[in-house]
Each structure stands twice: as C-alpha cells, then as structure tokens.
C-alpha cells in the first residue's frame, strides 16, 4: 500500500517555514477580515450618511454635552465607565470559572450557542436593517425574517461545532464583526479608556497567578478538556506528503492551554432589553450589555488569549506548544473584537489613522505569536497590540496628520 511512492521521488517534507508561515497567515487573515469589515461598516454607516446616531451615547453617560464639560471631566467619566466594565467582566469570568469547576460544561456550551444566536439575531438584524435603509434596498419583511432566522439558527449550530470548519470560522468572524461594530458606537473617550482598561485586565488575568483566566486555563489543562468559549481556532496545517489518506491524526487536547475566557454573562437578555428601550438605561446596564452578550462577548471580551493545541504527535517536538510544533493557534474572540473596535474607531477619525492602527495591531499580533513560540504557555493577545495601536493612533493623529496635510497643501508629496 505504501508502494505508491516508490517510483517517483517524493517531494521534500515541508520545512518549518512553510508550516509556520501558513499558520500565521491562517490567524492573521481572519483578524484582518474582521477589521476590514468593521472599517467598511463604520465608513458606510457613518452618522452623516444615514447611519445610526450613536445610540449608546445616550446610555453611556460619558458627558451630556461634550463641548461644555472640560476634558478632565470627560476623562474621568470615561475611566469610570471602563472601570465598571472591567469589574463586570472580572465578576463574570469568575462566575464562568465557578461553573466550569462545577462541571457544568454542557450548560455552558448550550448557553454559548443560545447567546450567539441572540447576538446574531438582534445585532445582526439591527445591522441588516441599517444597511437596508442606507442602500434603499426594498426587501420585504417576510424574506428578511426568513433570512435572519436561518442565519441565526445555523450560527448556533456552528458555534456548537457540528458544521464544517470554514462555516464555524466564518460565523465566529461575523460575531466578532457585529459586536465590534456596535462597540464602535460608544463615545470616543470611553472607547479609548475601555481599550486601555481591557488590555491591562487581560495582562493581569492571564499572567497573575490569581487571575481568572489563568485559573481557567489551568483547570482545563488538568482535566484535559476544552474551555467552553468562543475561540477562533485556525485550521491546523495538515501535511500532505503521505500518498494515501491515512488514519486521522491523533489529537490530544491541551498539552498546555491557553484560555479564552468565556464569561458567562447573561447579559444578552439585558442587552435585548436595552435594545428595545432606548432611554433611561443606566450606565451600569449598558456596560453590562457592552461587556457581554453572553458567552460570545464574554469570550470575546475577556478572552484575549492565544492558545495552541497540540494536534499531532510528532517525533521531535511533541510536547511543545509553539509555532514550530504541529498545533493549531487559537485566538479568543475578544481579541478580534477589541482589535476591530480600535481600528473601527480609528477609521471614524480618518483612514490614515486606520491604516496606521491596522499595521500596529498586526505587528503586535506577530510579536505575541513570537512570544508564544518562546514561552509556550497561555499569553494575553491584547496588551501588545492595543498598546501599539493606541500609541500609533495618537501619534498619527497628532503628528503625522499635520505633516501629511502640510505636505499635500504645499504639493510636496502625496
């Protein structure tokens, strides 16, 4: 049976560069796609061209009148909002940890599917209606309902994992896009403060010994189970040098785990109520809604971890978790969401800042993957990228823009 290859010289086995590059591309591509979609949505649905007014501005009390209150007050309000958010996420992560500890895994998975259905139906439906209005597409409500129903239900099935990998990945990216788009409607100061707070929270939660994400990951490792969370798993690179398809590769869960932290926030219900009643919501509820539309947001938000799962038993580097080994890189949906929020908010200022932030985030992601290869344990994916993104945004906005504008005005460049 193995004589098929005897006649012709077999191609050289793929070197580490091939597999490494392929793995990196398979994680950078969906992140880029998510960011691109969010930027397109913010550009197309900007408030000036018939898009939504920032509905969350009414709810999140950033400042009632941004021109009248000083920047200190605005900053204070923004920091307060983000602090509330972080506290909420921490509480929810601990709740998730408790449920996972009590082995309510089935409940968590079904809750994840349910909450992602709600996210797809409500946020997706809202966005769909906005797009229909913006482009004046005369779609009737029956077709709309059928399409939305299909989309949401198959999304639930995809999150449970019973569909092809491509469909699951597509749905996860779409959930990331939807949540990130609605997050870009936060007031500006709150967005930046929130991003900074989430990066710091991520750093603490994953690296500190008492951090909830680290505990979650260690618990999952000790039980050799997967964390019930919304995690984007890049398709593992499968070697094709064997001639005939052989037995499926041995899969081992979790040699070392990285966790995404799904928080079981049941705030999807809270969100639903927020969506229908526009006014009169407290900021507390809003942060709840922001934070987590259930498991989906939870994992997205509190997750920002990278993981690698050992997928094949290789002779040389069996137990390692790093880019060189045969493992699938996992990135929590929270990373997708916060990267996209950063780039989307940058795009709302100008496309120049969007490009700069995109490059900064991808550079940060590359550095995080490199650290992953070096340290081989769960790492937070948010801090480096968000730090770069923030620095580049403010530098571009304050310094580069002036330079470019002056060059253009004087016909020197661009």
């Amino acid at each position: 049976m193995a004589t098929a290859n005897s006649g012709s010289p077999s191609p050289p086995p793929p070197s580490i560069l091939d597999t490494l590059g392929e793995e990196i591309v398979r994680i950078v591509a969906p992140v880029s796609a998510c960011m691109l979609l969010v930027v397109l949505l913010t550009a197309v649905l900007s408030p000036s061209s018939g898009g939504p007014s920032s509905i969350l501005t009414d709810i999140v009390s950033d400042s009632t009148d941004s021109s009248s209150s000083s920047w200190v007050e605005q900053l204070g309000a923004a920091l307060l909002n983000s602090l509330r958010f972080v506290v909420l996420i921490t509480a929810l992560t601990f709740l998730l940890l408790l449920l996972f500890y009590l082995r309510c895994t089935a409940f968590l998975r079904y809750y994840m599917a349910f909450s992602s259905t709600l996210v797809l139906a409500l946020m997706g439906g809202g966005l769909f209606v906005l797009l229909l209005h913006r482009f004046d597409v005369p779609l009737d409500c029956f077709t709309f309902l059928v399409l939305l129903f299909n989309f949401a239900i198959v999304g639930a099935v995809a999150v449970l994992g019973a569909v092809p990998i491509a469909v699951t990945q597509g749905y996860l990216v779409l959930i990331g896009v939807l949540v990130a788009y609605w997050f870009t409607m936060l007031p500006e100061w709150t967005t930046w403060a929130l991003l900074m707070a989430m990066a710091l929270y991520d750093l603490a939660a994953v690296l500190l010994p008492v951090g909830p994400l680290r505990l979650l990951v260690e618990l999952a490792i000790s039980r050799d189970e997967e964390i019930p969370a919304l995690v984007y798993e890049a398709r593992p690179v499968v070697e094709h040098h064997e001639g005939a398809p052989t037995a499926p590769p041995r899969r081992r869960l979790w040699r070392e785990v990285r966790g995404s932290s799904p928080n079981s926030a049941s705030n999807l219900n809270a969100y639903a109520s927020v969506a229908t009643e526009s006014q009169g919501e407290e900021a507390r509820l809003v942060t709840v809604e922001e934070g987590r539309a259930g498991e989906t947001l939870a994992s997205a938000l509190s997750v920002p971890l990278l993981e690698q799962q050992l997928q094949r038993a290789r002779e040389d580097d069996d137990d390692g978790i790093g880019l060189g080994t045969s493992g699938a890189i996992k990135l929590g949906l929270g990373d997708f969401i916060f990267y996209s929020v950063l780039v989307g908010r940058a795009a709302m200022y100008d496309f120049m800042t969007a490009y700069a932030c995109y490059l900064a985030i991808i550079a940060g992601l590359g550095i995080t993957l490199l650290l992953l290869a070096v340290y081989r344990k769960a790492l937070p994916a948010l801090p480096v990228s968000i730090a770069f993104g923030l620095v580049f945004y403010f530098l571009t906005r304050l310094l580069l823009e002036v330079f470019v504008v002056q060059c253009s005005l004087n016909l020197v460049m661009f």
Partner: protein
Amino acid sequence: MERGGEVDEESNPLGGSRAAAGLGVPATPFYAWPTVDGQLGLESEDKAVEYARRFFFWGFFCLPWLWAVNCFYFWPALRGWPATSTPFPRLRPYIVRSALGFLVFTVLLASWALTFAIGGEQVFGPAWNNLVMYNVARKLDLTLWN
C-alpha cells in the same frame, strides 16, 4: 462535538489491515473522507449519516440554509454526480434531497423577493409600503437612524 476528538485509533488506511486480519469483508472503505474538511472532519460514514439525517430533518423547519450547509459539509458525497458507484451509499440520498430542497426553496424565495422588489407599488398597491422592511422597522420603532 469535538472535531476528531474521538480518535479513531484503529482506523486503517485503505482497509488493509482488516483484510489482512482475515475478515474478508472490507470495512467502510477509507479511501475518501466523508466531509469537506477531509482529515479534520468526521471519520466514518456512520457518524456522517447521522449528521446528514439530522440536518435534513431540521431543514424542514424553514431552514434552507441548513440544507446548504449540509451539502457543503458532505460535498465529497456529491462529487460523482451522475456516477452510479459512490463511496457513500447511505449518505448520498440525504445530501441529494437537501440540495434539491435548497434549490427549490431558493427559487421560491427569490421569486417572491424579486416580485416584491421590482413590482413595487404597481403590483401590490399601498400594501407595499407596509411590507417593506425599513418601513416596518420604522413603525415598530426599531430604527436606529434619525
């Protein structure tokens, strides 16, 4: 549903070792993977048939997209379209029926949507305005734009 989590430790390439074991009856021929994911998807036809049947059943609840996902998932079963010999004899009827169902539903839905969009008020009269989505959203106060 772990993708390949249950390791099929004794799955044998090309049914070689089973035949060698002297059973004489070839096991489920392993020269093709039933799902589009190949090595990463479902391993055996039995599991695939169960999934396909469940997708097919639930697709009748006004979920043609589920039928489409079904067809995409088990694409290798559809590959030899007019061929008589197929590697997945039990799987194929479900996939074929799912594909037919999806096509029929799409044609019906598209024709309704296009009639609605193109016909507009001339065909439907003033009721058209009550059925268009953005008006419905406006009426139900779901609008987020000003």
